[in-house]
């Protein structure tokens, strides 16, 4: 494989739920090391796209190629094994397990020796700034801490592509800023990131490129500045009458 080959290639992906087309003919490409923001109004199909990419749903049409592998028919655990891992919008910690044991489930994906997995997990926990909470049960964490835990577990599987589903939702400005810089550091370490996010400032800061979904279709794709001022994006978010409104 050449260095220029894209890490992720999504071609003509569609998913229908009964009469509703949740994702329609979606095509995307991601280069290695890239941060791609996926935005769009509620119900645009962003999380469905994540579920398709991570193997939690099977597409009706289209194909996904990741790091040289076709993902058709693969289960989530196998896709994780290839290096594509996702977080959940509604965080799903193992509530009765300690932070350490939570993250260790992730590090065990690449090794079977328990002691080694534990040490690796400690390193990941320190990296996301949960060090002081290492031995606490996940159920007792604050929302911000749970979001970090969700991130830590995914990171523990040593992904090449991380799908982050609204890791900033529900966080205050300080917490958000901290997560943004954490994600930047993760990206600098060579992990590509596909990001669903409603926090516009965060997504504009983090993303190299942004793709906008509306009613299951990609309507615009490009650098953050272009996307933010694109009439179709304004229309999708605010309605048609705002497209020609004068700027503030």
């Amino acid at each position, binding site marked *: 494989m050449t260095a220029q080959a894209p890490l992720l290639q999504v071609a003509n992906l569609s998913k229908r739920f009964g009469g509703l087309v949740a994702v329609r003919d979606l095509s995307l490409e991601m280069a290695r090391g890239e941060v791609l923001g996926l935005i769009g109004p509620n119900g645009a199909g962003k999380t469905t796209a994540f579920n398709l990419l*991570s193997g*939690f749903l099977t597409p009706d049409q289209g194909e996904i190629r990741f790091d040289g592998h076709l993902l058709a028919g693969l*289960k*989530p*655990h*196998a896709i*994780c*094994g290839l290096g594509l*891992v*996702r*977080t*959940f919008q509604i965080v*799903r*910690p*193992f*509530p*009765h*397990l300690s932070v350490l*044991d939570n993250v*260790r*489930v*992730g590090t*065990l*994906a690449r090794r*079977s020796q*328990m002691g080694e*997995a534990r040490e690796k997990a400690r390193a990941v926990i320190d990296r996301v700034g949960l060090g002081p909470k290492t031995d606490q049960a996940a159920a007792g964490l604050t929302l911000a801490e749970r979001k970090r835990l969700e991130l830590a*577990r*995914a990171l*523990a*599987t040593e992904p090449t592509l991380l799908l982050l589903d609204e890791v900033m939702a529900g966080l205050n400005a300080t917490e958000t800023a901290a997560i943004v810089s954490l994600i930047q550091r993760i990206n600098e370490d060579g992990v590509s990131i596909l990001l669903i996010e409603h926090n516009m400032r965060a997504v504009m800061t983090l993303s190299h490129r942004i793709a906008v979904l509306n009613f299951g279709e990609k309507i615009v794709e490009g650098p953050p500045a272009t996307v933010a001022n694109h009439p179709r994006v304004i229309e999708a978010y605010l309605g048609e009458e705002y497209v020609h409104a004068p700027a503030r």
Partner: protein
Amino acid sequence: MRWLAAAALVVLLLLPAVLNSYAVTVFIFIFFYAFLGQAWNIVGGYAGQLSAGHAAFVGIGAYASALLSMQAGLTPWIGMLVGGVLSAGLGTVVGYLGFRFGLRGFYFVLLTVAFAEVCRIVALNTDAVGGALGYYITFTGNPWQFQFQDNRVYYYVALGLMLLATGIVAAIERRRFGAYLIAIREDESACEALGVNTFRYKMLAMVVSSFLTGVGGTFYAFYLFSLQPGAVFGIPLSVEIIIRPIVGGAGTVMGPILGSFILSPLAEASRIYFGQGGWAGAHLIAYGLLLIAVVLFLPQGAYPALRRLWVRMAPR
């Protein structure tokens, strides 16, 4: 904690020297049900897949080794492995159906109960295995045929089974397999996302659990010498198997043992005191009350509660 376990083991090894035959019998049942509870614990406690049909595995193991011994002269020491393998075969089928088609909670409970009931009805209607009359083993007292003149030998065999299963569970808990089972119990989808092949690990848990339970069937057959479809495949036996680890602490190494030490003597005592004079079945009421108490006050079982107490009391 390790000290305590070692001391308890020494006591259990020496105990038959001072116990009368009846007390030995009580301990045999404590050990045997602790063994079955421990086997169930792997799939029911650790992996959180509530099999309510484990009697099926006891029954298959029991009938297999009894028939092989009586009809073909095969020693039950080997027959117990055959019974274990056959039970594991059934466990594979039940597990495959349940896990492949994503049956959870009540639906998995119903599936497992249904399989056990099918086994019961088949045994009930198969004359070759004694049908409704049951299947009887002639007592020869030959140790090679898993038959012992001295009750105390059964004591040590049952103790050995309990320790074996406990050792297996402790080993599972220390390994990736165990860490994955616990995580599956906590949140299956999250496990899948983190690279855990949940189907494979649940299947593995079911196979190990049903194999061990099937091995226990041989002990059942050659300790009681009679197999009744209703008793050996019935729902009451499945409940007996489940209730000990739940009361003691499902998903802990010591839970099934503690649960059996609490419940087996209780069952015995209520059978003796309420058994006569139209009070038969009163032990079921006692069980019911105890279960309600456990769910209300110790939802994780007695062992985790004891452990917390121990930690609080222990000097630093």
